[in-house]
């Protein structure tokens, strides 16, 4: 689905990761882990085609990112941004409908199909009944769920999630991870998400990509990547390993 071949992540004056190589296939759920400022968001933007300088090394369904138009790319891959620049002034349903841009065929307004997809997306994140609410009046967590609903309405094959769990309470964190897990397993989507919690990756992800921020990156199956040794180096703090029913979890000492 997505192939990243020798990408270099850099911010002015510093190389964050050299030669980033990995391939995310349909049905896989990837965790991107790293300390603050290690290049997670830079990587996600590059994978979404939002960084024009970093399009050559990334291929989507066998075709380089630069070879597709904006609309065609958005129908294949969608990103949940960590932050949005502006507040939206309309109703929640109008906001979610904007996710349908890449699919919309009508000249004026939206089709029944777009509207059905958007209502279903709102229901999937537990926001049914919020359609006519003003987006501005939503709480932080509700806003995050509305943004996830917009991405679901976009219905891409590859989901790029930059901190999907921010602002969410525990119940909704579980619900969101289950939702994307089942999209990968049952509907053959590929999911790549930036996570900050050392607890979730082992439960929710099949693969992991570690960005150490010093030019080094590692990627592979979650079971191989999520070891105490690696995570201690990644976050620079001592961890305690807790094994429950065969799965290892990590908590700060």
């Amino acid at each position, binding site marked *: 689905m997505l192939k990243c071949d020798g990408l270099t992540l850099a911010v002015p004056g510093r190389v964050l990761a050299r030669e980033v190589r990995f391939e995310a296939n349909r049905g896989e759920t990837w965790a991107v882990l790293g300390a603050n400022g290690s290049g997670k968001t830079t990587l996600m933007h590059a994978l*979404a085609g*939002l960084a024009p300088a970093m399009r050559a090394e990334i291929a989507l369904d066998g075709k380089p990112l630069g070879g597709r138009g904006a609309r065609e790319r958005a129908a294949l891959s969608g*990103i949940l*941004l960590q932050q949005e*620049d502006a507040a939206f*002034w*309309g109703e929640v349903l109008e906001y979610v409908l*904007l996710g349908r841009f890449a699919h919309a065929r009508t000249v*004026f307004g939206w089709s029944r199909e777009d509207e059905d997809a958007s209502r279903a997306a709102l229901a999937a994140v537990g926001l049914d009944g919020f359609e006519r609410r003003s987006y501005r009046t939503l709480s932080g967590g509700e806003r995050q769920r509305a943004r996830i609903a917009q991405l679901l309405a976009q219905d891409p094959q590859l989901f790029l999630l930059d901190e999907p769990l921010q602002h969410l309470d525990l119940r909704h964190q579980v619900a969101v991870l289950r939702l994307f897990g089942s999209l990968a397993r049952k509907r053959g989507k590929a999911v790549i998400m930036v996570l900050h919690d050392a607890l979730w990756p082992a439960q929710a992800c099949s693969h992991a990509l570690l960005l150490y921020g010093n030019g080094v990156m590692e990627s592979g199956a979650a079971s191989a990547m999520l070891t105490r040794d690696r995570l201690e180096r990644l976050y620079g703090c001592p961890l305690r390993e807790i094994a429950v029913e065969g799965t290892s979890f990590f908590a700060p000492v």
Partner: protein
Amino acid sequence: MSRPVALAAALIAASLASLLIALVSGPFPISARVVLDSLLFPMPGVVHDIIWQLRAPRALAAFACGGLLALAGALLQALLRNALADPYVLGVSSGAAVGALFALAAGAGATLIHMGALAGAASAIVIVFGLSFRTGEWDVYRLLLTGVVLAAGLSALVSLTLITAPQVQVKGMLFWLMGDLSYADGPLASWIVLIAGAALATSGARGLDLLSLGETKARSLGLPVKALQVAVFGVAAASTVAAVMLAGSVGFVGLMVPHAVRLMGVAAYRWLLPLSVLLGGVFLTAADTVARTVLAPQQLPVGVLTAIIGVPLMLWLLGRKRLPT
């Protein structure tokens, strides 16, 4: 009936009413019945001439000018993502003003004044667009600042012209600067710009909605951001030029009409744009009717009245307890 549809119906009715009132009002009394008769069964004569040679072109010019300014204002507010943007923020009207005032100072006739305004506006557009696009990296922030800086320089030129011009020509210059419809040419060309511009902009309204979420977000949802921004700039500039050519720089309409529509609970651009065009047209037609009748035979520049009438209405809208949406 949803809110935008209801508003559209009300504004279409108001448009027809404002045009009819404009045809009825004036120093020569003509009743609404006579106007309607003249519309349906044209009979040559003085009444017919007053309606069709004098009042109708003026009313249609006022409507087109208001619609064009509201359209340009709404588009520039979307493009610059700035609520204070108006059609004049990018220096187009200042450029036109310099051109028109130079022509006036030289004692030129109406045609040359129009050509001067067009040349000035076109130069301002080319300079602003050229400077902002020069490096190939299109940046809306730089576009806004370039426009504001250029407008400041051009305003200084306007002041200089006003101070050094012969006394007899200053009043004409002030009328031009405040916005005045008495020298409006045939409104056909402006109506073509208005209808084409509004149709084009409305067909790209979904993109404008996306743009309001920020450029990165819009790009991630599949919008070719730069292409849209260039197109929006083009339509806004053409609308502004067409409006300025009709009436000079009429203030208030372009800035406030889109906000008035937003305050009435319409945010989606596919509705905001056509409703702004209608409201702008109604508003300027009504303001111009007052401008030429309230102190008749003295004619006031319409630009003075847009603010005098518009400010209380806008404050009332703003002061309502619960803002819709």
